[in-house]
């Protein structure tokens, strides 16, 4: 059953990626990238990486789609046709990049293998056994993020907060400037 789900999800991802590459209407492409993120989130859930899946769905399907659409509102909504003679070099670059990644894949440990450095390092034992006495937080992941790596997490939160404020400033200005035009349209 897991194989069927995995294969069908990955097939759908390939179809979406090909459609994104082929379509010239950029609005459709923005929508399809959101869809691609949702598919990726499903795959992450299957891999038991629920937090990564959640980030993927929130950022990929939610935020990025809105940013793409905001950009489309300020620019043209159709892609310029790429000259045919650029296709071969582009295919070469994409193909060799993919080949390098597939080669790197052979160096990874098997999915769920118990003898990886992550599982064998003594620090894992320390976190799993002693963290409850040191911090009194029942969830180990929360302990790591909020206690042992608290400053790191604080930095991340500041970065995300700043990015969110900047996005709100950019979108807010765009909406205000276009309001008179909007009224004119409503009267028509």
């Amino acid at each position, binding site marked *: 059953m897991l194989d069927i789900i995995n294969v069908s999800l990955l097939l759908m991802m390939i179809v979406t990626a090909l459609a994104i590459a082929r379509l010239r209407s950029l*609005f459709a492409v923005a929508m*399809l990238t959101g869809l691609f993120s949702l598919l990726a989130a499903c795959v992450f859930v299957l891999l038991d990486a629920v937090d990564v899946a959640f980030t993927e769905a929130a950022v990929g*399907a*939610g935020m990025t789609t809105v940013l793409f659409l*905001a950009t489309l509102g300020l620019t043209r909504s159709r892609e310029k046709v790429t000259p045919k003679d650029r296709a071969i070099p582009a295919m070469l670059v994409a193909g060799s990049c993919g080949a390098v990644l597939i080669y790197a894949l052979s160096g990874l440990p098997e999915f769920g293998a118990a003898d990886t450095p992550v599982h064998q390092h003594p620090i894992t034992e320390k976190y799993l056994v002693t963290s409850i006495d040191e911090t009194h937080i029942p969830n180990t992941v929360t302990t790591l993020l909020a206690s042992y790596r608290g400053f790191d997490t604080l930095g991340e939160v500041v970065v995300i907060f700043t990015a969110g404020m900047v996005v709100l400033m950019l979108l807010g200005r765009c909406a205000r400037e276009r309001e008179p035009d909007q009224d004119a349209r409503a009267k028509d």
Partner: protein
Amino acid sequence: MMFAAAMLAILITMALTLARAVLGPTVYDRIMAVNLFGTKTVLFIAVVGFLFGRPEFLDIALVYALINFIGTVAVLKLMHYGELGWVDTSWERDDL
């Protein structure tokens, strides 16, 4: 067994929705396809939880429902108020 059947049904629906998002002639087809696909993701995560004995995934699926709703409202609101996706050249109107 029941969950496996539900999962297959969800996967087929996902494929159909994807076809609408790729082919869909108008903008609204595509917006609705992505919104539907978000709903399918919610169902997918809920069913995956029960299928593989992790029923606590249901809570995560609920949060996805919230994201999906907010995302669609954002897209529609931006299209309406921010004139997003609209370009003031009439020859492009067939696209959007």
